[in-house]
């Protein structure tokens, strides 16, 4: 893992000295803030709240906004990671330094994951607000954040791979968005396909909807952990291979 630490620091530095990260964080918090506001408005207007509709599960689970925001943000966060280094040629300086490819990939990945976590961090304030006004199941909240982390980790890993495969940031953005969209549409298949068929089973397994509604109800299913763990590790492995393959230019 030679070279991991300086690269990790530089990646974080690069994120926060360029306007891109701030724009992304602002958009993200704006959308999430509105989302929360609307949610609280709705729930407080209802005289009798639905039994299984806690604010937390509504915020993380039964909403299209979470996926929309991931669909918009993740490709923009990962697009420059490798594509920019190759286009501008800095990859040459990077890969002629005595650093291992795995360290380069991991440093880039973890830095973007940290940015993702930083983006979500302010939303924990909503939990504080909810807690002041009513009961809050901490387990459910933690499970929800675990879900957000797992889904994000997998998408970011896929985005990193797409960025390593092309010299164009734009192409990287489009490819990542397409992969996320396909995964999302497979999830929709759960609602469309006839229950009991193989397609339905596959779709349910892949569905980010189903996953998030589980997590936001406090259910941590080991199958989900394995699925998103795999979806994180496999693209990272292939990213290392792709970066190594640049040398055959």
């Amino acid at each position: 893992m030679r070279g991991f630490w300086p690269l990790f620091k530089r990646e974080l530095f690069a994120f926060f000295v360029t306007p891109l990260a701030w724009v992304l964080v602002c958009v993200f918090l704006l959308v999430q803030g509105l989302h929360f506001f609307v949610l609280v408005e709705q729930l407080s207007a209802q005289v009798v709240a639905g039994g299984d509709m806690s604010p937390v599960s509504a915020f993380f689970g039964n909403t299209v906004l979470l996926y929309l925001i991931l669909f918009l943000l993740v490709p923009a966060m990962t697009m420059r990671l490798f594509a920019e280094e190759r286009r501008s040629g800095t990859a040459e300086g990077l890969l002629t330094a005595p650093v291992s490819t795995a360290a380069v990939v991991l440093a880039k990945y973890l830095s973007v994951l940290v940015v993702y976590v930083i983006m979500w961090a302010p939303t924990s304030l909503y939990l504080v607000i909810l807690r002041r006004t009513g009961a809050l199941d901490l387990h459910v909240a933690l499970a929800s954040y675990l879900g957000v982390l797992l889904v994000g980790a997998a998408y970011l890993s896929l985005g990193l791979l797409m960025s390593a495969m092309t010299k164009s940031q734009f192409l990287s953005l489009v490819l990542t968005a397409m992969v996320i969209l396909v995964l999302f549409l497979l999830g929709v298949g759960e609602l469309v396909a006839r229950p009991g068929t193989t397609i339905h089973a596959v779709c349910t397994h892949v569905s980010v909807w189903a996953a998030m509604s589980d997590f936001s109800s406090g259910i941590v299913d080991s199958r989900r952990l394995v699925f998103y763990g795999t979806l994180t590790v496999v693209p990272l492995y292939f990213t290392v291979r792709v970066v190594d393959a640049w040398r055959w230019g």
Partner: protein
Amino acid sequence: MIVVQDLVKRYGARLAVRGLSFSVEKGEIVGFLGPNGAGKSTTLRVVAGYLAPTSGTVKVAGIDVEADSLAARERVGYMPETVPLYPEMRVVEYLDFRAELKGVARSKRSGRVDDVLHKARLVEVANVVIGSLSKGYRQRVGLADALVADPPLLVLDEPTAGLDPNQIREVREVIAGLRGTHTVLLSTHILSEVEASCGRAVVIAKGKLVAEGTLEELGELRRASGLRALVDGASADVERALATVRSSLPKMTNEPVISAKEGLVEVVLSWDDASSPRLRDAQKIVAKALVDVGSGLVEIAPLRGRLEDVFAELTRAPKALPDEAEAEAEAEREGES
């Protein structure tokens, strides 16, 4: 320090380097010469560990760049041709990052960064964001980057490209300052660069070695050869002497040139490469002939080819040998299919 053996690099169907071998000894400053597209950058990238060779081996300080890439890269300070830098960083931040990346110990880092800032004359821009630097300064940041971990070997790809004459002189001074302590391989297509900085040159064309040696050796490679003599005497005497010379030397394909110069007579004799005699023999015969006719011989010396002429001659598209032409056509066909 560098041993390149039978290096071949293929990009798809195109052969960029075709069986190149050369070596650089410890402490040498070697110029890597060739016209654009000769495969200079590709070769240097393989030496620096950025590209993998298609076949052949490259050893740096005895370490195979493929077998133990990290150890090899540790010993090389590489400055890429385009000097890619992160535009959002300040110069001092960038150099500190590069030093850390190259494994310079924390305790030595600020000392090393300070040192290269001075060496590359970057002190006044140390806190400027790289994106707003001029080309000349960026080039110097690249040089400072190559030097920052104090590697024993420096590989510089066109270090003075795009600089103004003053900046070129400054960069050459920095390189000259490395003489003796570092081994340097620098590529260029500018000949005066080699004459100014290098003790030896490796010349390639179309991915192949065409010549290698000290500058004097390369100068002698010029195939057309000749003599130049300065004589204190009448030009009639000189003509008489030349008549003797004509009878005892191979036929001169070029007519001797006799001209007056600063009160003396200058004689230039030259031969085409095919009929060229051994210059030392020719020199003796001509000197004797001139002295025999009673003219005062002031000076006689072989005509040395200027490096430009040698370079032009060596790298001019050679008439391809039949089998080579065939191989090339085949490679092209492969590319099309």
